[in-house]
């Protein structure tokens, strides 16, 4: 694919780019121009209308939110854009609520009902998740061209079914065979979680298309085990530290003669808060490392990405965001969203082998055929197109 596009680019040079930028490697950084103050007002009005319409407006709110973030994301003189149909999102949300309700009551009535509902969800969910990925990307544009998602249905089942199994299999087995000891072995499925996470990222990043250019992704499963083990180690270390402090505190307490039980309660509360803070920092720490790793191994023909977020700085940012959001009873949330988006974009570098304009013109050279496919795809997107993600 890579060679083919380069050949095409040389046969039909796109725009008249200066000679030096045609051959030189060019590094670009995306810029985000959105501000918390501006987004706060959009968010607040969105939220008010969503509540006032019992959630129906949330579909329109989502389109406006994505448009705000996309159109404020600049790369090489142009911005991203989102053109999704809110009705498709509304349809997806209604479906999601129905499925959520089914899942809520799946284990309440009878084993037959539980099997039927889990089977139905298992058959439908991967297909729907793939539909959601397609919807999001097909409605995202850059420089007048649409993105697309070309992951197949088979890949979707291989990717999402294991994830679904981790969530529902233990519950299903407990319902079907209550009290059987072998049921608890099904919880070992969680050990495979990093592999499933790796598989999910691979499915997402391997099948993106921009115009005719298809993404490539060079991931491995073991890196994800490394990230999860590090996170697990961090949490374990904090847990051990808190237990030790608690034990020492209890001894001191006993020696002091058990003054007021209130002190004990405060001490325990402080330790619980401390370990919760550690968790709050660990998840973004891991998320940042996964983000860097995945993006730095994603490429398009002639274009590579590099993400170098500082995992520690990201964890600190998330911690401050959570604390300020709590203190302001949620009003800080839009500011937090803008800061996170800006932080992630600032860490991303887009590297074009032979000058960005040159490469992107080559990528678009196959666009007419993609537009032809897209017309048929559009109909399918209208029929199956909806968005499950919030």
């Amino acid at each position, binding site marked *: 694919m890579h060679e083919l596009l380069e050949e095409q680019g040389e046969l039909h040079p796109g725009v008249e780019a200066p000679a030096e930028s045609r051959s030189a490697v060019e590094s670009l950084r995306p810029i985000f121009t959105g501000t918390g103050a501006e987004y706060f007002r*959009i968010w607040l009005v969105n939220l008010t209308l969503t509540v006032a319409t019992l959630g129906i407006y949330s579909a329109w709110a989502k389109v406006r939110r994505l448009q705000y973030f996309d159109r404020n994301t600049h790369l090489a003189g142009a911005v991203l854009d989102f053109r999704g149909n809110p009705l498709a999102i509304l349809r997806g949300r209604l479906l999601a609520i129905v499925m959520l309700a089914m899942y809520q009551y799946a284990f309440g009535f009878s084993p037959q009902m539980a099997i039927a509902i889990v089977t139905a969800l298992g058959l439908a969910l991967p297909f729907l998740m793939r539909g959601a990925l397609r919807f999001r990307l097909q409605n995202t544009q850059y420089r007048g*061209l649409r993105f697309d998602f070309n992951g197949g249905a088979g890949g979707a089942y291989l990717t999402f079914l294991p994830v679904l199994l981790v969530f529902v299999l233990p519950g299903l087995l407990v319902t079907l065979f209550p009290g059987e000891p072998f049921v608890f072995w099904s919880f070992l499925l969680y050990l495979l979680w990093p592999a499933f996470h790796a598989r999910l990222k691979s499915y997402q990043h391997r099948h993106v298309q921009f115009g005719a250019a298809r993404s490539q992704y060079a991931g491995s499963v073991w890196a994800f085990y490394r990230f999860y083990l590090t996170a697990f180690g961090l949490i374990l270390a904090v847990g051990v530290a808190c237990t030790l402090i608690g034990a020492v505190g209890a001894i001191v307490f006993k020696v002091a003669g058990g003054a007021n039980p209130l002190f004990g309660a405060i001490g325990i509360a402080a330790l619980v808060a401390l370990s919760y803070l550690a968790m709050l920092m660990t998840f973004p720490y891991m998320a940042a490392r996964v983000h860097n790793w995945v993006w730095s191994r994603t490429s398009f023909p002639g274009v590579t990405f590099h993400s170098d977020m500082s995992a520690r700085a990201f964890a600190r940012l998330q911690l401050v965001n959570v604390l300020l959001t709590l203190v302001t009873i*949620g009003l800080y949330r839009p500011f937090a969203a803008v800061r996170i988006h800006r932080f992630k974009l600032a860490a991303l570098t887009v590297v074009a082998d032979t000058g960005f304009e040159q490469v992107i013109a080559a*990528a678009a*050279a196959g666009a007419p055929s993609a537009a032809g496919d897209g017309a048929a795809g559009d109909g399918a997107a209208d029929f199956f197109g909806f968005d499950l993600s919030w």
Partner: protein
Amino acid sequence: MNNAAYFDGHSAALHPVQLEVRDGALRIAGAAIALVYELGKLKLAEPFLHAPAVLYLPDGGRCEVSDPQARADLAAALDYKPSLVMRWQRHWYAALAALVVLLGVGAFVWFYAIPRAAEEIAARIPPSLDAQIGASALRGLEKKAFEPSRLSTQRIAQLEAVLAEVSPAAPRHPLRLLVRNAPALGPNALALPDGTIVITDQMVRGIYEGNEFTAEQMHAALAGVLAHEVGHVQRRHSVRVLARSSLTAAASATLFGDFSAVAAGLPAVLANLHYSRAMETEADTYAIDTLRSKGWSTAPLAELFVWLDSVNDASPQKNMPKWMRQSLPYASSHPASAERIARLQAAASNK
């Protein structure tokens, strides 16, 4: 002077162009580009402060205008009218007024619309479902909390007779009494939606041995406890809780779902605790009405609650500082016992 970037929709190439609005038409001019569009067929995207203005062309092409002055000129030339929502969020005072509206609408939905909708839904749930829910709840309890009763068969027959006395002429479901030993639950009584009423050995012993009641008072206290549970069945509290908790869960997931699972789950739990308290009060009212219609006093039931309180006070909670203990009833699923006791005593005194 080039003031816009033009994209033709077929290639990703950026064409620097100049836009000009003249004679009811937009002219796009650049290197090898000369396009004319009717103004009526153009669509300008919602403007943002620092984002370029985006102009959608009818043939799938687009223009992006970054220069603030050019953006303003374009909007004026196209006679762009921002929607009501955009004008609303443009001003700080209007956006902040949304906060007030939000709180008002939120309160209306939370305190009026959702309970109202839940009642409507509960009224449409078929009674056959009550039996299913009741049976599955009982299976769980039998497995986890219940042991066979250690009371004599005469005592159990006595209890069944009292239930028959307080039963309404036309119960919603046929009522039946189960007596169970439940060390984990302690003195307690519960009503399942299918009309099953469970009373624990511990509660029965509390009535007959724990208090210094006369035979008449024992009878009135027992009748009060059972009438309270009959009230839960008659008012169909379980199905109403189910309908309401499902609705609140769906609503909070829609609103806060993108924040965190904890935030999404919490409001639903808090609301249901409150709902339970309202229901307990409703069941108390039912018990008071039943006792009064038979001409029995509500005072023994009040005394029984005092005793239940003292049993609960023996729990570790008692060591907590006073302010903490007092704030707990607000987070509990039962109304503060003091309130309930006062109500029963008042009912006893103004016969």
